């Protein structure tokens, strides 16, 4: 499915100093099926707010998100969330559901309000856990598994609804480097194998470079740049947005691949 944002603005007042106002003005981009878009920017640049606006969790004050040329606000919520999967950052849960129970929750758009999940939903959950490679942990409590495993389970929870777009909010930011690579690889594999497009928030330039076809770079007052990854992520612009010198180096054997 094609996802497009036209002229997106989000603010409570004209002055955009306070959160969750979005500094960025006039957000415009198109995401074609199977593509990966990375929203890249330092902490506090409004990446999460942007994701919420794109998916309709917050309403754009101006502009609109379009899905296959249809305004997102016109879509029925249930239909929308069958097609769009939102992966939050892994967090501690009050109640330790087993990973299987956690993943089954993703089937909610398919289950009518007054009924309970069926055998079929359970099988779909196990299949999704298998897809991200942690089927063996299905009966573990989500407060007992590691942060990386929980993040994978949260990805599985969206996969179980068979989405066309995955929206990931800094899925790798608080993981150690090995888990980060597992997460990134999983995202890339899903995108390649299943043709799922992804929008992924990150503040690691190297992750954006590794994954993304397009980058939407944002940095408070510095504005907004959208384009092909290699075009956007120039050394000069990285310095401007992140405030430190960054060098682009290519190793023959890309560790991340």
């Amino acid at each position, binding site marked *: 499915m094609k996802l497009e944002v036209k002229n997106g603005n989000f603010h409570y007042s004209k002055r955009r100093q306070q959160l969750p106002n979005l500094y960025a003005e006039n957000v415009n981009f198109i995401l074609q099926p199977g593509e990966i878009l990375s929203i890249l920017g330092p902490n506090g640049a409004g990446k999460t707010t942007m994701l919420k606006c794109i998916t309709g969790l917050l309403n754009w004050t101006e502009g609109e998100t379009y899905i296959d040329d249809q305004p997102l606000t016109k879509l029925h919520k249930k239909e929308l969330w069958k097609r769009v*999967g*939102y992966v939050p950052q892994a967090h501690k*849960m*009050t*109640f330790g559901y087993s990973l299987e*129970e956690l993943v089954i929750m*993703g089937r909610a758009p398919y289950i009518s*309000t*007054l009924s309970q999940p069926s055998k079929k939903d359970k099988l779909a959950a196990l299949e999704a856990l298998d897809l991200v490679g942690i089927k063996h942990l299905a009966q573990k409590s989500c*407060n007992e598994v590691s942060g990386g495993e929980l993040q994978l389970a949260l990805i599985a929870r969206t996969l179980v609804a068979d989405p066309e777009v995955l929206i990931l909010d800094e899925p790798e930011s608080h993981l150690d480097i090995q888990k980060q690579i597992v997460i990134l690889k999983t995202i890339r594999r899903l995108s390649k194998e299943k043709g799922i497009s992804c929008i992924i928030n990150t503040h690691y330039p190297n992750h954006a470079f590794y994954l993304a076809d397009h980058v939407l770079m944002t940095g408070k007052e510095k504005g907004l740049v959208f384009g092909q990854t290699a075009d956007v992520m120039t050394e000069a612009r990285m310095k401007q947005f992140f405030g430190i010198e960054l060098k682009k180096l290519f190793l023959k054997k890309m560790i991340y691949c």
Partner: protein
Amino acid sequence: MKKWQIALMWLLPIVVAIVSLGIGRFYVDPYTIVKILTSQVFPIDQTWTNMEETVVMNVRFPRIILALLIGGGLAMAGASFQGMFGNPLVSPDILGVSAGAGFGASIGILFFGQGIEAQLIALVFGLLAILFTFFVAGNKKSAAVFMFVLAGVITSALFNALISLTKFVADPEEKLPAITYWLMGSLGTATYRDLYIAGPIILCGMFVLYLLRWRLNLLTLPEDEAKSMGIPVTALKWAVIAGSTVITAATVAAAGIVGWVGLIIPHVARMFVGNNNQYVLPVSLAIGSMYLLLIDDLARSLTATEIPLSILTAIIGAPFFAVLLRKMGGRWS
């Protein structure tokens, strides 16, 4: 859950109920009770005395059914609120319902004496208290959950002060003991009339919560996450609040304030079946109803006078659950 566990869960409260019908100062054996109960539906030869039938059917039956409904209802309401607020320390009176209904009952007793008026006023004030809580929390569509909890604390404090005021002005010979006794919870005066008023309301609330039991899992997630499951979060929350509130208000109207059950029973249920509310709710219902029934059996047979329920739920409950908690080490979370 396995099939036999489910069967046991539903069978046990029924067995306890049948035995409970027999115990008291006038003992009736379980076999006779089954026969008396059967005779209400099918015509069979009478082998028991009229006295036995009167005691079982008129005196004990409404009381025991009410105990089952109140215990089960409070446990279910507690489990639902704990899930919805994502906080295992929440009990069904968190939004101020009990305090409101308690105040309603107090002024009811003050002006009309103990009777149907006091119960109806209790019910009305329980619901008024909830409305007040929502007024304090603000009517923003996405008001944060902790706002509701804080508003509930404020509401409870206000109505508790008003209860103290009514006690202060009440006639200490007659009204004050009635109010005090009533606030500690008792089924001592339970009749069919109480059952007909509170029963349907509690059952309605239970039905709503039971149908939404799996959705409750989704409501424990942070708001945005729950929305991203494509469910109408706000509407579901209102449904859960409505269900739990009417249960709590009706129980307070029927039997006064019964503490502990709504807070503790859901945790016991979680020790048995894990955190999935799909199972936690029905198991809470079963355990809660059985627990309050046993407590009520003690309340009416332990001494010559009735002991208030809240005293027993805590005195017996606290050590029992303390041991359970230590043994299980809070394994449910």
